[in-house]
């Protein structure tokens, strides 16, 4: 089986169908209304607070992720000099 576009289309449509059915069939428990003027409300500060308090662990992990991907990418992408 090589690349099979109709099958791929069918599969992705099926996925769409299932997910849409799932999301639209759900009565989401949302806030009654969005903040009056979202543009006004800056949540940058809140996000920053969260990142450095509650989510400091993923933040630190992310540093290692970046380091790892850096090493990995450089290693993979670098042509061997001796080749």
């Amino acid at each position, binding site marked *: 089986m090589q690349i099979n576009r109709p099958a791929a289309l069918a599969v992705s449509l099926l996925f769409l169908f299932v997910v849409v059915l*799932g999301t639209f069939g759900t*009565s989401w*428990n949302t806030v009654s209304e969005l903040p009056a003027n979202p543009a006004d409300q800056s949540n940058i500060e809140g996000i920053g607070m969260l990142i450095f308090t509650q*989510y400091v662990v993923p933040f630190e*992990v992310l540093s290692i*992720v970046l380091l*790892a991907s850096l*090493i990995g990418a450089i290693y*993979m992408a670098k042509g061997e000099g001796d080749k």
Partner: protein
Amino acid sequence: MENLTLLAPELAIAVTGLFVLLAGIFMSPQAKNMLGYLATFGILGALGLTVGSFGTEAAMFSGTLSIDALSQFFKLVFLAVALLVSVAAIKYTEDSNHTEEFYALVLFATFGMMFVASANDLIVLFCAFELASLATYALAGYEKQNARSLEAAMKYFVIGSVSAALMLFGISFVYGATGTTSIPLIAANSGLLVNNPIGLVAVVLLIAGFGFKMALVPFHMWAPDTYQGSPSVVSALLAAGSKKMGFVAAFRLFIVALIALQPDWQLAFTILAVVTMTFGNVVAVAQTSVKRMLAYSSLAQAGYIAMAFVVMTPMALTGGILYALAHAFMKAGAFIAAAAVVWMVTSEKKGNLEVPDHLDSFKGLGKRMPLAAISMTIFVFALAGIPPTAGYMAKFVLFSSTIQAGLVWLAVIAILNSALSLFYYARLVKYMYFLPPDGEKVSTPFPYAMALLLAVAGVLVIGIWPEPFMQWAMEAAKVLV
């Protein structure tokens, strides 16, 4: 201020990783061989710290990390695998000029896995999960002059990324329905998920995300190719280590956070477990590449462990957790033995160089590399569940739990699979001992020998004296129930 001593193992790994990386820059290619020992000591230290902290329980960083028996147990698993891989890789990276990168990536991947084990928040979980994935993508392609290694890395990356996306998509729905990413809070707010179709969608998306790591059929597609194509030591890390990461994440997420959706995921896991173990075992029969065969056997083993989700009794979870530990030793050991054979074939430049792990390379291994052969025999017998090995003990507990829960049909499928697996395992043993060797005797390189002996020790100790491991696994299972 948080008590960081509880994170000492993780920190030790991270520091070792950074140190290896930095030290490597300043070292001559020959001296780089030292790095392997360095990493090994780092891992040993972390292992010691982990074992030392057994029994402590704590929630850290606003509850995003949870130090408990489950996390400690799986950290033990990951560190054990890392140790084996690290020791074996001393030989593997001997002639490489990139030893520091290799070890750094191994250590970072381990670091990621350890965080997954103790993650108590989906954000931590996802980030750590990705760390473990990203680091191993590069490792899989470590032999970048080797088309197979690259192909393995490519497939691993593509399917891994798709799975990550699926998982993130699933997480977003869970978050949307509960308004939180904290695992305990999700459990408390899961009303909406239970009553709406989105619950099932989210569950299956998450299963797909973790199933990628666990290599459950049909999310396993990358696994045989990647396990076969990657350097054997990396395959060991993937099959023995990162696969367990999928399990520990799934344990926490489904059993703790989404317990309210148990009917959905239980059913899904039932289907997956049965299909996975059957497919894995059946297809393994026809394999001629040993690593590929081990990959399929790895699928089958994942299917067995997934039975823990189906049975969901304390005994089953104990069994599943114990199985994770046992499988870490058996599978890592088996891949390292394969690594030794691949080394033998490639260094002699004789035999099937395209597929150095072909069954034919194992001919007469009992004469050529006695230690590798006997270790491999023990590993495959353990995988087949033959006493007195860790594999037997784990199967004993896990399979017996299905009977306890009255799931006789599941038990029957499992044992039939287990019996079928004997076929290909025994064939491998036959090749090693009972076919004439193709070459001279070769002494097993010291690092491989050490790694193999460690793994054998693990397999046999768990098999013969399982009581302490049983106790730990039971403690870990208690966290979940």
